[in-house]
C-alpha cells in the first residue's frame, strides 16, 4: 500500500502544476498586472508611475510566462508564473496583493468553515440515513411514494432559497436564532444552528434518494432473503444487515469530501456572515487578488487529491477483498 500511496502522491505533482498553470492563464486572461495594481491602489488619481512602482514591489513587472530577455533557464524562472507558483509547492502561500499573510489568514478562517461543515455533514448523514431507512422500511407504501416525491422537490430547489427561506422563517418570523453572524468558542453555537439546519435540509433530497437506492439495492440481495428466511424481523434485517453492507459505498462517498470541508461554502458563508475560507475565496476573486485565488485553488486541489487517496485507502479498510498495489 505504501508504494501505491507514494505513486499517487507523485502523480499529484503534474496535476498540481497543471491546475496552477490553468489558474494562472485563466486569471491573467481577464486581469492584467495593471488591473491588479489599479484594484489595489484604487481608481482615483493613480498615476502610471504609481502603478509601475506597485508592480515592481509585488513582482508583477516581469513577463508573465516566458522571459525573452533572460538567459537559459531564466527564460522560464524569471517570470511572474514561476515566482508566484514555486513557493506554493512548499505550502508557502506568501502575502496577498493587499499585504496580508495568506497562510495566517487560512489558518484563522478554516475553523469557522469547519464549524459549519462538520456538523452539517454529520447531522446530514444521520438524517439522510434515517429518512432513507424509513422509506426503505415502508417501501411500497404511501410513505415511500410521497417520500420520494418530497425528495425530488427538495433537490430541485436552489440552495439560495433554503438560505433565504430559513432566515425568513426561523429568524425573522419566529425569532429563534440570529439571522446571521458568528462568534468564537461556545458563543458560536447559536450562529451555527441556522446554517447547519439549512445545510442539512438542502442536502436531504439528494442524500435520501441516493441512500434509499443503496438500501433498496441491498434489500434485493440473497443474504437479505436468507436473513428473512431465518425469521428475522424487518427492522433487524435493515439495521443489522442492509445498513452495514450499504455503508461501503456510503463511506467512500463521504471520505472524498472530508478534506474539502476545510474549504467552506461560498454562498452559505456569505449569507450567514461566517468568516470562513469560502468567503475568503470569493473576496479574493472580487478584489482581483491573484495571490489569494491561486492559493485557494491550489489548496482546494491538494485537498481533493488527498480526498481521493483517502477514498482508495478506505476501500481497503471496509472491504477486505480490495488490495492496493
Amino acid at each position, binding site marked *: 500500500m505504501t508504494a501505491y500511496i507514494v505513486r499517487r502522491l507523485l502523480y499529484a505533482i503534474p496535476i498540481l502544476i497543471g491546475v496552477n498553470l490553468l489558474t494562472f492563464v485563466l486569471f491573467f486572461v*481577464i486581469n*492584467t498586472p495593471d488591473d491588479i495594481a*489599479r484594484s*489595489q*491602489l*484604487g*481608481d*482615483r*488619481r*493613480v*498615476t*502610471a*508611475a*504609481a502603478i509601475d*512602482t*506597485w508592480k515592481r*514591489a509585488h513582482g508583477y513587472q516581469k513577463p508573465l510566462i516566458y522571459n525573452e530577455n533572460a538567459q537559459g533557464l531564466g527564460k522560464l524562472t524569471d517570470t511572474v508564473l514561476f515566482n508566484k507558483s514555486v513557493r506554493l509547492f512548499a505550502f508557502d502561500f506568501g502575502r496577498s496583493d*493587499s*499585504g*496580508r*499573510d495568506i497562510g*495566517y*489568514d487560512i489558518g*484563522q*478562517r478554516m475553523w469557522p468553515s469547519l464549524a459549519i461543515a462538520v456538523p452539517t455533514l454529520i447531522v446530514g448523514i444521520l438524517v439522510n440515513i434515517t429518512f432513507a431507512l424509513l422509506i426503505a*422500511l*415502508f417501501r411500497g*407504501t*404511501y*410513505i415511500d411514494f410521497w417520500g420520494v416525491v418530497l425528495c425530488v422537490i427538495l433537490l430541485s430547489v436552489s440552495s439560495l432559497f433554503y438560505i*433565504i427561506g430559513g*432566515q*425568513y*422563517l426561523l*429568524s*425573522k*418570523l*419566529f*425569532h*429563534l*436564532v*440570529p*439571522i*446571521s*453572524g*458568528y462568534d468564537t468558542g461556545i*458563543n458560536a453555537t*447559536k*450562529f451555527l444552528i441556522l446554517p447547519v439546519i439549512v445545510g442539512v435540509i438542502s442536502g436531504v433530497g439528494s442524500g435520501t434518494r441516493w441512500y434509499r437506492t443503496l438500501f433498496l439495492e441491498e434489500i434485493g440481495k440473497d443474504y437479505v432473503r436468507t436473513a428473512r428466511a431465518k425469521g428475522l424481523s*424487518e427492522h433487524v434485517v435493515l439495521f443489522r444487515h442492509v445498513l452495514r453492507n450499504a455503508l461501503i459505498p456510503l463511506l467512500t462517498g463521504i471520505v472524498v469530501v472530508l478534506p474539502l470541508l476545510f474549504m467552506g461554502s461560498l454562498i452559505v458563508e*456569505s*449569507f*450567514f*456572515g461566517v*468568516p470562513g475560507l469560502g*468567503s*475568503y475565496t470569493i*473576496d479574493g476573486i472580487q*478584489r*482581483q487578488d491573484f495571490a489569494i485565488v491561486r492559493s485557494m485553488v491550489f489548496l482546494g486541489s491538494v485537498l481533493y487529491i488527498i480526498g481521493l487517496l483517502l477514498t482508495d485507502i478506505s476501500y481497503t479498510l471496509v472491504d477486505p477483498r480490495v488490495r492496493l498495489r
Partner: protein
Amino acid sequence: MHRLAVSVFCALISPASDALWNNPYPESQAKENVLYSSFSERPKHLDPVRSYSAGEYAFIAQIYEPPLQYHFLQRPYVLVPLTAVNMPRVTYIGADGEILAGDAPVTDIAFSEYEIRIQPGIRYQPHPALARNEHGEYIYHALSPAQIKQVHELGDFKHTGSRELTAMDYMYQIKRMANPRLHSPIAGVMAQYIVGFSELSERLETAQADLEDGAYLDLRRFRIAGVTIVDRYTYRIRIHGKYPQFLYWQAMPFFAPLPWEAERFYAQPGLRDKNITLDWYPIGTGPFMLTENNPNLRMVLARNPNFHGEKFPDVGEMGGHEDMLLADNGRPMPFLDRAVYSLEKESIPRWNKFLQGFYDNSGLTSDSFDQAIQFNPQGDATLTAQMGERGVRLSTAVATSIYYMGFNYLHPVLGGGSERARNLRHAISIAVDFEEFISIFRNGRGIAAHGPIPPGIFGHRQGQAGINPYVYDWVDGRARRKPLAVAKKLLREAGYANGIDNTTGKPLALHFEAIGSGPDEKARLNWMRKQFRKLGIQLIVRATDYNRFRDKMLKGKGEIFLWGWNADYPDPENFLFLLYGPNSKAKNNGENASNYARPEFDRLFAQMKNMDNGIERMRLIDEMVTIARRDAPWMWGFHPQDFSLHHAWVRNTKPNLMANNTLKYVRIDPELRAAKRGLWNQPVLWPLVLAGALLAISLIPAFVSFRRRERSTAL
C-alpha cells in the same frame, strides 16, 4: 399527569426567559452604550497614507485626526480646526522669496506656505509601540522571536503607553506619503504641489533599494524641503504656486499624524507574518481606537481614554442657533462607549437585522425600498406606516457626486466641437430621459443634473438660473425636459434625420460601453436602447467587465459610457477638472474620461482653480458651465440622493457627506433600544411544536401498517 403535560407544552411554546434567542450580541451588552452597525466589504487598508475609500474612512476617520475637519452642522460645508488651534495661516511668496499680499495675482505667487499650529496636550491612544519602561526605553521595539511567538493580535501585548502629539508627527506622515513603498494614492498629486516631495521620494527609493519589503527605514533621517518644524507644536508646509484646495486635503486622513515609534514597532520581523501591521492596527489621537480588528467578522471601536476632548458644536446649519440638533450643544464628545461593526455582505440579512433592532442604522437597497419608503402626492419621500410605527427616522441628502453619461470627444461621429456633432449630442441628451431613469432604477433617489457641479458645492445654481437650456425649458416654475420633437429636429440638422445617416443612407449605430451584464444591468441596458430608439438611433451595447471598460477608456476607444465622480472636497475645481483638456484620460491618463478639450474652457479653468470663492470665481464658473453645456461632452446624468434610516434611539445623525469622522457626534438611548428589541423579538415556538406533531401524526398510519405487515404470515 394531564397537568404536567400542559405545563410542559406551555413551557415549550413560551420563551424561557427574557433573553432574545435571535440576538446576535451577548445579552450582557443589551443596555450598554454601544452603537451597532455593519460594513459590507472588508477594508483593504487602514493605513492613512493608503486608505482612500468610504468603507475604510468609516473606521480610520474616527481614529486618526488631521489638523482640520468639516463642521458637522453648517452648510455649505465649512472647514474648522480639529487638532489645529486655528485655521492655518497662509503666506504667499514670490519667486525671489518676497512675502506677497493676500490678494496678490496668482501669477506672482511662486509658493504658498501654510503654517499650522496644533493644540498642546493631545495624546495618542494607549499602544504597545509607545510603551516604555522605567528607564524610558521602548519595551517592544526589539522583540525576541520567543516574544513574537506568543503574540497573535495587538491586544496580546501586556503594556501600552502614550505620548504627546507633536508637529513632528505630522511631518513624519507627509514623509510617509512620499515613500514609494507605501503606495499612497495621492503621492502623484502631492508631488505636484509640496516642495521637495518628489526629491524625497527619489531619495527614499534609493535608500530602500537594498532593504527587504517591510523593513524599517527611519524617515526622521530624511529631509523634505517643503515641510519645516517651527516649534514643538507648529509646522509649515510650502507648496508650489497657489492652491487653495490644499486646505481641504488637510481634513483628510492622508495628513493625519503618525508617531515614528509605530513604524519602528510594526516593522519588526515576525509581526508582519501575523498580520500585525500598521495597515491593520491604526494608532491615532482621535475619539476612538480600534480594539477588535477582525475585518472578516467584526470591527470594534472603543472610546480612546486619552482623547483630548471636543464639544458638540454650538452653531447650526445656517450658522445660527436654531437647529434642533443643538440639543447637545456644548456637551463633551464622544457620546458612545463603543461602536460594533459587523461584516454583513448580503443586503437581506442586513435589512432584517435592522428591522429587528440589531443594527441601529441602515442604508436602503432596491429590495427594501418599497417596504420603507413611499412618496406623498407632492413627490416627497416619506416613511411607510410600518416604519413610522417603529419610530424609524429617515435622513436624505443629495450626494456631492455625479453620475454622467459621457461621449468620447475623440470619436469621429460623436466627438469634436463641430456643429453637427454638437447637435447630435444635444439631441441624444434630450432623448435620454434621466428623470425616468431615476424613477425606475433608483426609486426616485436622485435629481437630474444640469451641469457638472452638484448642489451644495460653490458654483451650483438653483432654479431657472441653473437649468441647462439645451435640454430643458423653464415651465411653471420648474425645469421641463424639451419635447422629443426638438431632439428630432437637432438630429435632422446633424445629418441623421430619423436616425439615418444622410451621407451613407444607413441607420446610425452607436456603441454603449456597459459594465457587467447581469439581470439588473439587462433591464437598464434595455431602457437605454429604448431611449436611443426614440430617435431611430441603434444603440449597440458592448458589455464587458470593469477592467476591459477601464482599458477602453484609457485608450480612448469608448463611445458612450456611464461613469461617476464623488467629491474629494467641496470645491467646484474637483468637478470641473473632469472636463479639463490636459486631464484627458486617453492622452494623459487623467480623470477627463470623455477627453473633452476646449481651449476656452481650459483657459478659464486654469484661471478659476486657484481663486478664492467670490463673485469673480462664480462668474468664471458660470462661463465654464455655459461652454460645457453648449458642447455637451456629457449627458449630465444625475446627482444621487442618499437615504439612510435610523432607529428612534439614535440621535445626531445629520448627513454630512464630506466629513467622515461623524461617529463622535452620535448619541444613543440604550434603554429604549433594549425595550424595543424585547418587544420585536419574542421567540415564537408554537410552529415547531405544530410541525413535530404533524410529522408524528403522518407517521402513525405507516407505523400501523408496518406492524400489521410484520405480524402477518407469509401465506
